[in-house]
């Protein structure tokens, strides 16, 4: 591996790579945002909804969690076109990742809410709070402490999953890398470099997650 030569090639390729990083980050960000909004709804439905709705949502999460993300991405890409929703690969990919994210966030939220002892709700009722008040002042804040670290973890999962969009032709970091490889034939160097970039992004997120976890810990 000739480092100097590779540095030259890398410098020439800086724009495609930076654009790739930009696309990767936007995919991840959009997927996390949409997935979280959807996921919080899923989590609330799993915990508090009445039977038929709860079963439907349960079926949804179980189905999504039982399917590989790549299958979700491919299915979303091929199926949406067939039913006349003409989305580009970018939108189709984000939809798939958001759905995947929502099932994860849903489970995290449900887990957190259910781990709060029953006595908390009873104590809130006993001082006369309504359910929305109980949720806003008692259950929500307690659940949030548990949800945040796991949620940051999910964010890292999304960055990793965004690579799958390269398979349906979204020009994110991995696809840009592959294009560069096909032009320069420096596969080892470029895969290494791409891997390194992903590592840096995810490592930063992981560190941030630990920081959040420490910040959120209830003093005891």
């Amino acid at each position: 591996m000739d480092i100097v030569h590779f540095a030259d090639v890398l410098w020439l390729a800086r724009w495609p790579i930076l654009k790739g990083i930009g696309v990767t980050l936007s995919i991840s960000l959009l997927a996390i945002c949409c997935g979280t909004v959807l996921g919080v709804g899923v989590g609330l439905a799993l915990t508090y909804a009445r039977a038929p709705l709860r079963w439907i949502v349960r079926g949804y999460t179980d189905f999504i969690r039982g399917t590989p993300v790549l299958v979700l991405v491919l299915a979303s890409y091929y199926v949406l076109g067939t039913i006349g929703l003409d989305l580009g690969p970018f939108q189709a990919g984000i939809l798939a990742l958001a759905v995947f994210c929502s099932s994860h966030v849903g489970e995290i939220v449900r887990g957190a809410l259910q781990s709060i002892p029953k006595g908390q709700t009873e104590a809130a009722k006993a001082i006369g709070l309504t359910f929305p008040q109980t949720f806003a002042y008692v259950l929500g804040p307690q659940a949030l402490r548990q949800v945040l670290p796991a949620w940051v973890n999910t964010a890292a999962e999304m960055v990793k999953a965004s690579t799958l969009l390269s398979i349906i032709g979204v020009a994110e970091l991995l696809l840009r890398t592959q294009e560069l490889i096909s032009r320069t034939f420096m596969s080892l160097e470029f895969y290494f470099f791409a891997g390194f970039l992903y590592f840096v992004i995810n490592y930063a997120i992981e560190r941030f997650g630990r920081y959040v976890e420490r910040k959120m810990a209830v003093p005891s």
Partner: protein
Amino acid sequence: MGYTLNFAAVWRSFDDLLLGLALSLALAFGSILIGAVIGLCTAFGLISKNGLIKRPAGVYVSIIRNTPILVLVLFTYFALPQWGLRLGKIESFVFTLALYSGAYLAEVFRAGLLSIPAGLREAGLAIGLTEMQIRTSIIAPLMFRNILPSLGSTIISLFKDTSLAAAIAVPELTFETRKINVETFRVIETWMVASCLYVFTCSILAALMRIVERRLALPR
């Protein structure tokens, strides 16, 4: 829309899907088995007090966990030949998934090892057992019970990751699905059947893990 579901084409190729599923399961089984050995050794490394063992184990886990698996798969298959390591598609994928599982299982095993009270080791020592005997007859069986729930979900998620083998044209379930999709244009049906196969297999795996868990549960 005018799309009517017609499964006939998919049923004609159903055998291919089943063969693909069988290969997916075989890939998962092989990789997880090798990964479990790597993971167990790494877990002992992670809890070791010797920095020369602990650091490399930690670096390995951190690198694997923060790099997208697709990058690892492509790297092994396309880039490693540049270093003279040329593997077949299947070998290359099993190699990657084994290394990948190793890092995730190491975390599972580490948590299991830490959950065992130190007093049990001492009680073993006090009746004259050697460290090795303590590991095999006390620590290993207890750790295995403690980690079963998280081991189950890790195994299921690793099984889903076998879909990534499609990216290097290993004819497993996702690859076969995509092929049938392109050949028949029965897009919705093909992906529906494929996800159902994945979901079904995952729930079978989960049910098996629950049976093992119940079988091994300690009476109290």
